[in-house]
């Protein structure tokens, strides 16, 4: 659960090769989805909205206090809770 106790926990960087979690991208930055981790049926729910490995996405904004991250995928904007967003690994464009 996303409670006060863990909301200051540092975001773990995805290992090496310039990959970033979605939460660390800049607004306006684009990149390719490398991996979608997470339990329950989160990868499936994200895939249904078009967020799956290989897909091009652009970050639009993120709310402060670890609020949702909004990205653009195809012609749609999707808002993703922070905890979910940090589990999406992106290979940013140069």
């Amino acid at each position, binding site marked *: *659960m*996303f*409670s*006060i106790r863990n909301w200051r926990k540092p975001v773990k960087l995805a290992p090496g090769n310039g990959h970033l979690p979605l939460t660390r991208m800049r*607004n306006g930055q684009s990149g390719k989805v490398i991996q979608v981790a997470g339990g*329950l*049926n989160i990868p*499936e*729910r*994200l*895939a*249904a*909205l*078009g967020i*799956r490995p290989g897909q091009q996405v652009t970050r*639009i*904004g*993120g*709310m*402060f*206090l*670890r*609020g*949702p991250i*909004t990205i653009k995928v*195809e*012609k*749609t*904007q*999707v*808002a*993703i*809770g*922070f*905890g*979910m967003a940090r589990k999406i690994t992106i290979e940013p464009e140069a």
Partner: protein
Amino acid sequence: MRILLMGNPNVGKSVLFSRLTGVHVITANYPGTTVGFSQGHMKVGAEKAEVIDVPGTYTLEPTNEAERIASEMVQTGDVIINVVDATNLERNLYLTLQLLEKQKPMVIALNMWDDTGHLGIEVNVDKLRALSGVPVIPCVAVTGWGTKELVEAIPRAAPGQVLPQTRDERWAAVGNIVQQVQQIRHRHHTWRERLSDASVRPLTGMLIAAVVLSLSFTIVRLIGEGLIAYALNPLFDLWGGVVMKLSGLLGGSGFFHDVIVGKLINGQINFTQSLGLLTTGLYVEFDMVLPYIFAFYLVLGILEDTGYLPRLAVLMDTLLHRLGLHGYAIIPTMLGLGCNVPAILSTRVLESKRERFIAATLISIAVPCAALQAMIFGMVGKQGPQYVVLVFGTLFAVWVGLGFIINRFTRGFSPELLTEIPPYRMPPWRIMGQKLGMRIWHFIKEALPVVLGAVLVLNLLYTIGVFDAIARFLSPIVTGWLGLPKEAVTAIVVGFIRKDVAMGLLTPLALTAHQLVVASLVLAMFFPCIATFVILARELGFKDMARATAIMVVSALLVGGLMNLVLPG
């Protein structure tokens, strides 16, 4: 023959449904507007077919209650009309393939066809037809363009030829189809897209929210008060004359006279104090409440149809997490400011039972419906705006505080926000007008019999002295703890049926401003009106409904009592 309208959320199924069947349903520009299914009929050739508007779903593997309904419905249909957002082919086609795998006769409606042009998207319809093996009809549901062709295509519906496949195979197939049928031209950002981006960024988002919400509030009040002052008050002045004549005919007093006209105050009827069917009964609903209902739903309609509400969900997400909810719960909450009944139904868009419990409980305690708000504005507002602010401020604090507490003490966890943010659109004015009309008609149809019934029963109970007995029994609580006169018991009891009439009953008691504040809070929180109660029981189940009710009673008494202690005099 049974036709199912199926597709992703917010692709326009309900608008198309209204087009095909002539049955008006509530439509809006956010995913999850439809949470149950509506039924209508249409002619297909000479045959009468049943049409079902199925809640939107991204896949047939459901993740919430609304999607579960959708995936269960598939089996029951004879023909599927798969409504597809032509501007979002890739995402939409995943469900299309799942539906084709069911091998039922199907037609694809490529909705929002008009948007493809200025978004720089080109879709090759013939190729899509060849690849899917079923008829594909471009259409624009909001204007009706292409719906005739769609109806004509239904008899040609062909069963899907796709064999069941795995998720990865399906996505690969989708990619393959999209590559063959869709071409995208690059094009610059429009102002709508810029506004859209600004709405989900912290600083600009907060600013936009502040402007939108304060503007909404101002417009609701301006229209509501304007209608009361310039249209309804003059109308009721005329009506007063008519009822006075009737009063004379009925002899000016007696049981029958008192039920119909009410008690004369200083030889005149008094719309707020006479308590007759034709005086207070009509006055409360039509003069005090209806103008605000109209104004509220007009503004809500605009917020819904432009697509602002999901942006508000993004903005409120962090706060709502503290209450065990996620941002999307703001949509049921906003609907609750109109009426708690559809609000509690719309909690079906939330994923877990826990979230639905928290959201529904908070709505029924701390979100006053438009009818009650109108009465609070009308009555408490007379004492000064600071008291109105006090009532709403307290309710907001209760909403946050109680949510925090329930979140702490309810087991389980709440999932995170994940939602599509639809593009901003111009509201389709005609459809929006119909929606407003439906909601007002619904209010009148539901409220009028209950209000008139309540006034009637009230008069009867007064006459046989039932209220005196209840008042004596409850006086330690009502008088001792809440500091209200014992006659206020009547209002609290009527509050079980309808809150607006209950507030109306407080008028003759000449309460002080502080007593009015306490009474408004207790009425708002204490118990949902009977219609909300029934929906709560149905949606949450008996056990959770009982828990919710216990929370309501305790928190209402606590907040009411504390306010009584804190406020002087």
